[in-house]
């Protein structure tokens, strides 16, 4: 039987889809509150530095960033295929590496905090 890398690609997609379903709306809502002039305590510089200073929070933030981006990348890849883009291996390489690179960048920024 041919070996497939589907489970490796699909597992973070499913995990990310679940995570973003639970978490992304409320995160956007908090950002919106800050935008409308009601900055929540957690988004003040000192509070957020304090939060992101803990290694467990850094780990959680990188996990959230990676899983969210990976599931978005996977969905974008499938959607582009559905819309008629047939260069799937190029699309896959582009979207997955973008998700990976941005996650590494998030980790690097967090390590500076």
């Amino acid at each position, binding site marked *: 039987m041919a070996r497939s890398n589907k489970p490796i690609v699909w597992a973070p997609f*499913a995990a990310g*889809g*679940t995570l*973003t*379903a*639970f*978490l*992304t*709306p*409320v*995160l*956007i*809502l*908090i*950002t*919106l*509150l*800050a*935008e*409308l*002039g*009601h*900055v*929540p*305590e*957690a*988004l003040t*510089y000192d*509070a*957020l*530095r304090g939060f*992101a200073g803990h290694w467990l929070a850094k780990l959680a*933030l990188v996990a*959230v*960033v990676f899983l*969210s*981006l990976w*599931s*978005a*990348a996977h*969905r*974008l890849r*499938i*959607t582009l295929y*559905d*819309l*008629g883009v*047939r260069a799937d291996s190029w699309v896959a390489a582009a979207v997955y590496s973008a998700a990976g690179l*941005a996650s590494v*960048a*998030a980790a690097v*920024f*967090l390590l*500076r*905090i």
Partner: protein
Amino acid sequence: MAEKVSGKPYVRPITSEWIFRHPRYLRYMVRELSCLFIGAYTLLMVWGLKQLADGPEAWRGFLECLQSPASVVFHVLALAFALYHSVTWFNLTPKALPLQLGEEFVPDGVIAGAHFAGWAAVSLAVLYFAGAF
């Protein structure tokens, strides 16, 4: 008289007009396009982490950027798409995670309902710990 037959194999034309053929297809596409907003919001989060690492001045600048009208419009749209992703995702949970207790399958409504309740609890907890109220 025989028609002249081309030696080339038939290549089915690939188009994207199918998404307008049925409202169901359009809803599917709207659901899939939520990935653009969730992806963009997450990239914005990564940018925010950079600004946070750069210091208080950079962080203040980031918050000011967020308060621009274009950013507010983006976040309102992103919120709508993210909510649509959550609702469609949780509505699929009975199909993805069928649960059998003894002889009987747990009803679909219970599985999806448990996810919706969990979602509400998580959202309220995050709002509370973020100091939103």
